[in-house]
């Protein structure tokens, strides 16, 4: 299951009336939105949205019924169990060679403020200002110790850039921690604190 589907399913499961509706679905062969609404004293729109949402996720199936003035739907439970199973590794940032060999340095006039640890050998947080005039907002990013050490060794603006892997080696950051370093690099690139330069080999 992907994160988005799991989030949608969790959204419905978190409703106060979710268990009551599922009780009806389990015990009745098929129910309509109006039957659910009158039975549980809910607004019909609330019941309908809930059942429609679950139908879209494939938990229920629906069948159109024409026995009254206007057609309506009957909902039938399709699954005996609900399992939310997310493979978290699918969102892990894999440190590919391309990302690790990216040449970076601090961008000139980045306007960020760096807070240094008392021991003066790593950065504890970066404060960035976004927006203009009245919309100007301060955003403080707290760093993990490996991220702080990495940032401490980031080349200054206008000097020869280094690859991410080289900076990690200089900062004595373990290779296993590459995903969190790459996450920081991507974030600071977005906020224009870090600039990535084309590799020398790419130029030629």
């Amino acid at each position, binding site marked *: 299951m992907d994160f988005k589907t799991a989030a949608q399913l969790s959204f419905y499961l978190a409703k106060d009336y979710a268990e009551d509706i599922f009780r009806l679905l389990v015990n009745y062969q098929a129910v309509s939105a109006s039957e659910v609404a009158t039975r549980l004293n809910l607004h019909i729109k609330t019941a309908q949205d809930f059942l429609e949402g679950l139908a879209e996720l494939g938990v229920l199936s629906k069948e159109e019924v024409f026995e009254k003035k206007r057609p309506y739907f009957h909902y039938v439970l399709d699954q005996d169990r609900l399992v939310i199973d997310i493979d978290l590794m699918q969102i892990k940032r894999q440190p590919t060679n391309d990302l690790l060999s990216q040449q970076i340095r601090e961008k000139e006039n980045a306007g960020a403020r*760096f807070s240094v640890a008392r021991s003066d050998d790593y950065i504890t947080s970066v404060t960035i200002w976004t927006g203009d005039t009245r919309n100007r907002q301060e955003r403080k990013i707290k760093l993990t110790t490996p991220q702080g050490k990495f*940032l401490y*060794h980031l080349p*200054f603006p206008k000097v020869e850039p280094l690859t991410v892997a080289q900076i990690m080696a200089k900062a004595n950051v373990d290779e296993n921690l590459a995903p969190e370093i790459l996450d920081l690099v991507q974030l600071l690139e977005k906020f224009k604190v870090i600039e990535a330069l084309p590799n020398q080999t790419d130029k030629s």
Partner: protein
Amino acid sequence: MVIAGIFGLSALLFGIIPGFYILGGLVWIYALYNLLVFVRMGNLAHLVPTAYLIFLGFMLFLAPYFGQRTESDLGYRIAWFSGILVFGILMIFVTITKKVKWRGREIFELAAEPVDDTGDGYTPRPRPVGRVEFTQREILSFARFINSNLIAIAYVSPRKVTFMPVKMGDEFMQFLRLYRPNDESTWINFDFEGDVSVHISHKDYLDYREPLAFDKLCESLGQLFVNFAELHKKGEGVRIIDRLDAVGLSFFS
């Protein structure tokens, strides 16, 4: 000018006698500052302005009681003359020999000497300069030397020593700051594991006429202190003073 102004204003507002007292009080406050520099930095030469200012304040407190051309007035005048003469000679000596001069400007000049490139690149981040092989004892001894010669203010903490160069004119504010060097000050940090790092404040960087390559400037400043520490380790501290004197800045800059 300032002293005359304060005296004139206080005399105008409160009368001539309170004017002398206010002036004497201010002079003693300045004497206290000089005494603090001696105690904190171990700079012996600061005892000269301290003693001079205590004497001056004392004479100002006595001033309203003399001026009647009496016998005791003659003694007061002789005390004035001899005090000004002795302290004047001593003050000229410590000024000309730069023993009471804060050496921050010389430090920044020496740091800029090897930097030919321009191009700005300022960042408020500190820069790691490298590792050195000094023992904790050697670093602390170097810190005492740096303090006593007013090359920088050394802040000693359990893990490191941080040197903050102070320029003449900034000494009152920088010296009286009791907290550790911060983002707004320039500092050179020697930790006891041997790592050296440098931070140059934006204000100090803008004091350079040219936008020197910032990275190289930081490296040069760090290296300058490493070289100083090596000279001191070899017992050649006097060469450090020679290098600072060779910059050729005036006594008050």
